[in-house]
């Protein structure tokens, strides 16, 4: 006979999962903060080429995106198979690039206007013709800071 009760024998105590919600919430908050929900719904094909002499774009400075590529398979019936320009959510013609830049500038604070960078997201299989026209339009509207947005990789494998 012992004074002390014997501890329950056998069986591991169940693992406490009480802190699981806390862990999951922590992860959740991380992803909520780090997330950038895709801004533009692409109508065109847009797989970027690779390059390795790249610089990161500063997200704090204003960036406007111009997409160039062939329409995606779903839209070929509507838009054909030639390279097209996408501004915001719509396919536009070259002449509308200037208006687009003007609208982007109007939405900015005045002191930020000269820092506007145009990110050109051009499909790797696109031809230079449309891009050349877009560059001329950008020059006319004096949006001279551009960035050929690419993936990181060896340019020789393109």
């Amino acid at each position, binding site marked *: 006979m012992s004074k002390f009760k014997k501890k329950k024998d056998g069986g591991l105590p169940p693992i406490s999962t009480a802190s699981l919600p806390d862990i999951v919430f922590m992860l959740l908050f991380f992803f909520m903060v780090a997330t950038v929900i895709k801004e533009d719904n692409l109508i065109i094909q847009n797989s970027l080429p690779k390059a390795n002499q790249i610089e990161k774009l500063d997200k704090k400075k204003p960036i406007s995106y111009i997409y160039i590529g062939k329409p995606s398979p779903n839209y070929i019936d509507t838009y054909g198979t030639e390279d097209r320009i996408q501004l915001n959510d719509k396919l536009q013609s070259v002449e509308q690039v200037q208006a687009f830049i003007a609208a982007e500038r109007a939405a900015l604070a005045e002191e930020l206007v000269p820092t506007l960078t145009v990110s050109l997201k051009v499909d790797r299989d696109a031809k*230079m013709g449309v891009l050349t026209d877009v560059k001329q339009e950008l020059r006319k509207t004096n949006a001279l800071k551009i960035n050929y947005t690419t993936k990181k990789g060896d340019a020789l494998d393109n």
Partner: protein
Amino acid sequence: MAKRSAPEVNAGSMADIAFLLLIFFLVTTDIATDSGLSRKLPPWEPPTDVPVIIKEKNIFALTLNSKNEILLTSGGDSELVPLNELRGQAVKFLDNGGGEGKDVCRRCKGEGDKASSDNFIKAVISLANDRLTDYKTYIAVQNEILAAYNDIRNREFKKDYPSLEMDFVQATEMYQDPSTEPKVKENLKEKLEAIKAIVPQKFSEAEAKRD
């Protein structure tokens, strides 16, 4: 009346709800930051009648045709160059140092060929493309030219500022990093500008040919 204690809220399903949200954000997340080749376009000016005269030996002219072939015209010769030799050729041209008298290039390590570029400041790389050139070829060529400039700038940066123990590209990255202290930035900016002045990017792009 019996004293009732408030029933405890069952928090068991909290984890499930949190998981659901977590999975939603996991799927929609796109953490990738944008990066690419930064360039500056020349301002739009009405064409002037006065042509700029550059000695032929100081021009490294690249032409991309509709079949994505690269034609290099330099020092009076024209030849097709494969993409993987382009960087080496460009470095050789920039680093040639064939100048004499006031055009002499003290920093150049090249062969000093009289038929090639005088010095870093005189050397111009020009690129013309066809409207039917593929974008991926164009980007690869742009990348290789930038790489050639960066190679030389790295070398000069290391030579001038060995105490920093980094090269030009690393210093540029550090300068652009928002977490770098302003004092360090100021210091770096000065050095980067100095190297940029020694090895300027004289890179011109002609308008695409109409066909």
